C-alpha cells in the first residue's frame, strides 16, 4: 500500500509504534483516562543498511490531536479527499468483540488505523508536502489555531445549485451508494461472525461429553477420547480465524469513512458553484438596474421605482450619481465573478485530479482486501479439513 513515491516518504520512515494510558484533567477540569499513541520517525536510509539502527524521534499524541490535524487538512485542501481516521467508537461489533474504547484489542486496532492514516497522508502527492503535517510528526508542542473558516460552517447550510455539475452529482450518488452497501456488508459480516463463533464453540461440548462417555467404554474409549480432543482444537480455532477477519472489516471501514470525505468534496464544490451562481446573478441584476435607470423604463418592480413614479421623478443629478455608483458596483461584480470562476475552475481541476487518484487507490486496495479475504477463507477451510480428518481417524479407532 505504501509507495515511496512522495518526497516525504523518501526522506523518512513513519510508524505508530505503541499505545499507552494516561490520566489527566480535561477541559472541564475532571480526571479522565485516555490513550496516547507513540509516533516514531526515522530517516529512511537508516533502516535498510546493516549495523545498529538509528534511534527514532518519538512523540506521543492522543486521538483528538489526530482529529485536529485532519480538520485542518479538510479546511486547507477542500478539493482533496482527505484520508479518514479510524473509528472513534467501535461499531459493527459482533458480540465477543468489546465496544469499550479502552479495551486492548480496540486500542491495538486503532493504533494500526492511525499508522495507516499517517502513511496515507505521507504518500499523498499533495498532502505529504504540508508543513503542518510535518510539524505534527516532529514537533512535540503542537498548537493549531483553527481557522474559523466560514466556508466550513456554511457547508451545513441549505442551498440549491441551479446548474449542478453532472460529474460531481454522479460522484455524490456513487459515494452514497457505496456508504450504504459497505455499512450493510459490515453489519451482516458481524452477524455471520457471531453465528460462526457459536457453531465452532458448541463443538467444544463434544470434547467434554466424549471424555465422560469414554470412561465407561472399553473398546470405544480411546477413539472417543482422542476425537474429543480434536473437537476442543476445532472449537478453539475460531478465535484466531475471526481475529484475522477483523482486519478485513477494518479495511472495509476505511473505505466507508472515505465516502464521507468524498461527499465532503462534492459539497464544497456545490458551495463554490452556488457562490458562483450568486455572483453571476447579482451582476446581472445590477446591470439590469443600470439599464433601467438609463432608459427610464422600469422592468424590475421595486419600491423605489414605485415611489419615484408616485412622488415624482428624480433629478438628472440624482440619476447620474446613481448610475455612476452602479457602474462601480458592476465593475467590482465583474471582478468578483472572474475570481469566482477562476477559483471554481481551479477547484474542479484539482479535485478531479485527486478523485482519479482516489479511484485507482480504491480499486487496488479493495481488490487486495477481497483477495486477502479469500486467502483467510482458504486457511479456515484447510484447518477444518485437518481437524475433521483427524477426528475421523479417531472415530475409526472406536
Amino acid at each position, binding site marked *: 500500500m505504501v509507495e515511496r513515491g512522495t518526497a516525504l516518504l523518501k526522506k523518512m520512515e513513519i510508524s505508530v509504534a505503541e499505545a499507552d494510558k494516561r490520566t489527566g484533567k480535561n477541559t472541564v477540569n475532571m480526571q479522565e483516562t485516555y490513550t496516547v499513541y507513540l509516533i516514531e520517525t526515522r530517516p529512511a536510509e537508516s533502516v535498510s543498511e546493516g549495523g545498529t539502527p538509528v534511534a527514532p524521534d518519538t512523540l506521543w499524541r492522543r486521538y483528538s490531536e489526530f482529529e485536529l490535524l485532519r480538520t485542518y487538512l479538510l479546511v486547507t485542501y477542500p478539493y482533496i479527499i482527505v484520508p479518514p481516521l479510524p473509528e472513534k467508537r467501535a461499531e*459493527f461489533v*459482533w*458480540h*465477543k468483540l468489546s465496544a469499550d474504547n479502552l479495551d486492548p484489542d480496540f486500542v491495538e486496532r486503532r493504533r494500526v488505523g492511525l499508522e495507516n492514516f499517517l502513511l496515507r497522508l505521507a504518500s499523498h502527492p499533495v498532502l505529504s508536502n504540508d508543513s503542518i503535517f510535518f510539524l505534527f510528526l516532529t514537533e512535540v508542542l503542537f498548537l493549531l489555531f483553527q481557522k474559523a473558516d466560514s466556508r466550513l460552517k456554511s457547508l451545513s447550510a441549505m442551498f440549491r445549485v441551479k446548474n449542478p455539475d453532472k460529474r460531481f452529482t454522479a460522484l455524490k450518488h*456513487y459515494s452514497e*451508494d*457505496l456508504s450504504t*452497501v*459497505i455499512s*450493510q*456488508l459490515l*453489519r*451482516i*459480516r*458481524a*452477524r*455471520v461472525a*457471531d*453465528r*460462526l*463463533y*457459536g*457453531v465452532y*464453540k*458448541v*463443538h*467444544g*461440548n*463434544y470434547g*467434554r*461429553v*466424549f471424555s*465422560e*462417555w469414554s*470412561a*465407561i467404554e472399553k*473398546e*470405544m474409549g480411546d*477413539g472417543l477420547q482422542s*476425537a474429543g480432543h480434536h473437537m476442543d482444537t476445532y472449537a478453539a480455532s475460531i478465535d484466531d480465524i475471526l481475529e484475522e477477519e477483523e482486519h478485513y472489516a477494518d479495511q472495509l471501514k476505511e473505505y466507508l469513512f472515505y465516502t464521507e470525505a468524498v461527499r465532503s468534496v462534492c459539497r464544497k464544490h456545490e458551495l463554490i458553484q452556488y457562490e458562483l451562481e450568486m455572483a453571476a446573478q447579482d451582476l446581472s441584476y445590477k446591470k439590469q438596474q443600470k439599464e433601467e435607470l438609463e432608459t427610464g423604463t422600469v422592468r424590475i418592480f421595486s419600491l423605489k421605482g414605485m415611489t419615484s413614479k408616485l412622488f415624482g421623478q428624480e433629478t438628472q443629478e440624482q440619476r447620474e450619481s446613481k448610475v455612476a455608483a452602479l457602474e462601480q458596483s458592476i465593475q467590482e461584480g465583474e471582478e468578483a465573478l472572474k475570481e469566482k470562476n477562476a477559483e471554481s475552475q481551479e477547484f474542479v481541476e484539482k479535485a478531479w485530479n485527486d478523485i482519479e487518484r482516489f479511484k485507482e487507490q480504491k*480499486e487496488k486496495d479493495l*481488490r487486495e482486501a*477481497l*483477495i486477502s*479475504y*479469500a*486467502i483467510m*477463507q*482458504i486457511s479456515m*477451510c*484447510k484447518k*477444518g*479439513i485437518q481437524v*475433521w*480428518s483427524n*477426528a*475421523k481417524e479417531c*472415530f*475409526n479407532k*472406536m
Partner: protein
Amino acid sequence: MSGAKVPADISGHMLDLDEEEDLEVFSKNTSLAEGNPMPNSPDSMVNQFRLDEENEEEQQGAINKDIFVTVDNPESHISAIETFITYRVVTRTTRSEFDSSEYEVRRRYQDFLWLKSRLEENYPTLIVHPLPEKFVMKSMVERFNDDFIETRRKALHRFLNRITEHPILSCSHHFKVFLTDEELAPHRKLGPGFLSRMSETMRAMANSVRGLRSKLEEFAIMQEYVDDFSNNMCSVDKVTHRITKEHREYMDELKQYGPTYFQWAESEELLAEPLKGVGSCVEKCSKETEEQIQYLSEVLVPTLHEYVLCADTLKAVMRRRDNIQAEFEAKNEALASKTTDKEMLQEEVDDLADRVEQANNALRGDWSRWRTSMRADLKSAFISTAAKNVDYYEKCLAVWESFLLSQRGESMEQRNGADAS
C-alpha cells in the same frame, strides 16, 4: 444488529445445556431429502445387501439372511372417528414357516406398538430396538407433517429390520402375524388385556419396593453402565441438536451475505468482477452448509436419538429382569416359612428359578449382541459425519481457490498489459 443468542463466554456454559431441548424430541426443522438412502422394496434391499460392502458387519452377523422387510408408502386414513397414517409393510422371505414368499400389509403406529409389547412380554430380557416416540411433545398438530411422517417411517423401517436380524426375535409368532395377517385388529384384542397388564405392573411395583435380596455382580455392573450410557447419550444428543441449531442460524445469515456483494458490484466498474466472485463463493459455501446440515439431520441426529431411546429400553429390560428375580425370591421366602403344602409351592419356586435362569442367560447373550451393534452404529454415524465435514471444507476450499486463481490470473494480465504499453 441481531441480538446475540450465544452467551458471551461459551466455555463457562459448556456444562449447562438447554433444558428446554429435553422436550425437543423431533426437531421441527428436520428436513429430509426426497431421495432417501433407504431402499424402496425388499427386492432392491436384497440386491443392495449383496452389493453393499459397507454392510460387512451385518453380513457377518446375518450370513443367511432370509427375510427382508421394508416400510414405505405412508397414507392417511380419514374416518368419522379419527385420522391416522398407515404404512405399507412388504416382506420377502424364503423361510419355511411362512406360507408364501411375499407379503404386503398396511400397518399403523398402534400396530407397531402392539408388536413391541408382545415381543417384550414374550422375551422380557431381550433388547428390542426402540420405536419412534408416540408424540411430538412440542406440538400435536405436527403429527401429519411430511417431515415427521418420513422420519417416523424410517425409524419404523429400522425397528422391523433390527428384528429380522435378531436370531430369536425374528422367529417370534407375533412377528410373523404382524408381517402377514391382513387384519391385525382381532389379534390386538387377544392376548393379555389391560387388566392383566395392570396387575403385572402392580406386582412389579410391589417387588421393587421389597428390593432384591442379592444381585449378581455382573448385573449390577450392567445397571451402572446402562445408567451412565443413558446420561452420556442424552448429552451427546443435546450437543448435536445444539450444533444443528447453530449451523442453521449461521446459514440464515450467510444467505444475506452473498447478495450484498452482488449489490455492491452493481455500482462498481473494475471492482465489479472480484466482488461478484466473492459473492458467488459465499453463495456456493452457503449451499454446501445447507447440505451439511441436511446430512447431519439424516444420519447423526436420528442415530443418536435412537440410542437415547435404547438407553430407556435397556433400563426397562434391567427392571424386568429384576422383577423376575424378585418374584422368585418372594416365592422362595414364602416357601421357607411354610410348613405344610410344600410340594406345590416347591414346584412353583422351581419354575420361577428356571425363569430367572432363562432370563439371565437371554440377557447375557443379547447384551453382547447389543453392545456390538451399538458400537457399529455409533462408530459408523460419527465416521460418516466427520467424513461429510471434511468433504464440506474441501468443497469450500475448492470454491475459494478457484476465485483466487481467477484474481491472480487477472492481475498477471494487468501487469503484462502494463508492461506491454
